[in-house]
């Protein structure tokens, strides 16, 4: 290798004697390379390429210092990247938790040291039955569930339905469609369940219970 690099230096310097005919051949070939690879003309390309240069430099003609606002751009990119990363990690975490059948919010709130007042409903996770707010989804009580035709829920819902929906001033005593009980009916039944039967608790204008019965009778 050393010899060849010496040869290379000799080739570069053009110092080739008659002692090595093969190297002389290589030297002659490299001369041919130089002569065949002449500088090409670029006149016909110049206009198009300078136009590309101009397009790549939109601030052409303005001082160089004016397009040095990289720190702001970097900060913005960093913030956007952080936000995207946070959303992605939260989504991934929630996805993993869901895959394991764990409610991610519940899992977080059950962590030791998590403030009790920040837990949903302020309930003690060790005694979930004492939760301040019901955790089960309210069932529509308008029609007894086919799955539970005679359970207690159906029984409790029936009086509300039998008594008819709370007549409000707006519907003037018209009952709601029994075939499609609405969440209002559920709320009413929930109130009935909890024993709070005051009209105010329903959030609706007060109505005379006797009138309610009367309208129901009329309806019947």
């Amino acid at each position, binding site marked *: *290798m050393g010899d*060849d*690099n010496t*040869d*290379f230096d000799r*080739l*570069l310097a053009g110092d080739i004697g008659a002692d090595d005919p*093969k*190297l002389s*051949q*290589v030297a002659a*070939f*490299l001369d*041919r*390379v*130089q*002569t*065949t*690879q*002449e*500088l*090409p*003309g*670029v006149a016909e*390309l*110049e206009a*198009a*390429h*300078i136009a*590309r*240069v*101009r397009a*790549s*430099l939109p*601030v*052409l*003609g*303005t*001082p*160089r210092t004016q397009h*040095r606002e990289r720190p702001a751009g970097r900060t913005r990119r960093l913030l956007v990247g952080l936000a995207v990363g946070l959303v992605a990690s939260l989504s991934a975490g929630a996805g993993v938790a869901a895959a394991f059948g764990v409610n991610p919010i519940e899992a977080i709130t059950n962590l030791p040291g998590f403030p009790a007042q920040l837990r949903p409903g302020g309930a003690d996770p060790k005694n979930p039955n004492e939760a301040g707010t019901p955790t089960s989804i309210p069932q529509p009580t308008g029609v007894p569930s086919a799955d539970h035709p005679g359970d207690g829920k159906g029984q409790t819902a029936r009086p509300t339905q039998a008594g008819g929906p709370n007549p409000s001033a707006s519907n003037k005593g018209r009952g709601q469609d029994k075939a499609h009980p609405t969440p209002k009916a559920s709320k009413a039944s929930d109130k009935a369940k909890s024993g709070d039967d005051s009209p105010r608790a329903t959030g609706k204008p007060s109505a005379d219970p006797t009138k309610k019965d009367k309208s129901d009778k009329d309806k019947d």
Partner: protein
Amino acid sequence: MAIGSRFPQVLQAAADGLEWAWAELYQEYAPPLLRFLRSQGAADPEDLLGDCFVQIVTHLGEFAGDEAGFRSWTFTIARSRLVDSWRRAGRRPVTPVADPTLVGRPAQHHTDAADAQLLQAGDVAEILAVLTPDQRAVVSLRFVDRFSLSETAEILGRSEGSVKLLQHRAIRALRRALG
């Protein structure tokens, strides 16, 4: 044919976006860059040359140095664009042949000087085809464009030792091909 002592002013004017400066830089550096791209078997050397100047514009703020350094830097960009084009095409470079139809023409055409020159170019290209792309780049950069060993190493993104090894192998391959 260099810009010479005016180079710092021309470079500053180009950095300031003055079109006359870019025209001067183009006229000075585009011909050797195009020759290099052609010699390396670029599929579309003219288009790559345009890409090179776009890169030069984009990264001019990162350059610091004299005219020789700038020349070397432009070749580094050209080499980078060349390698990118090979990757995009998903293949190795094409063998640089001047005009395949001219290779092996009947002898009576040798009387024409232009044809003889094209035939010589075809022969040279055929012999250069025995070299690997990196060996060919070293031969072109060292012999044709007269870059130093360190400049060639910088352009190719290799160590000087690696360039010396490429030189050694290129000379050995040429000895075999010409013998």
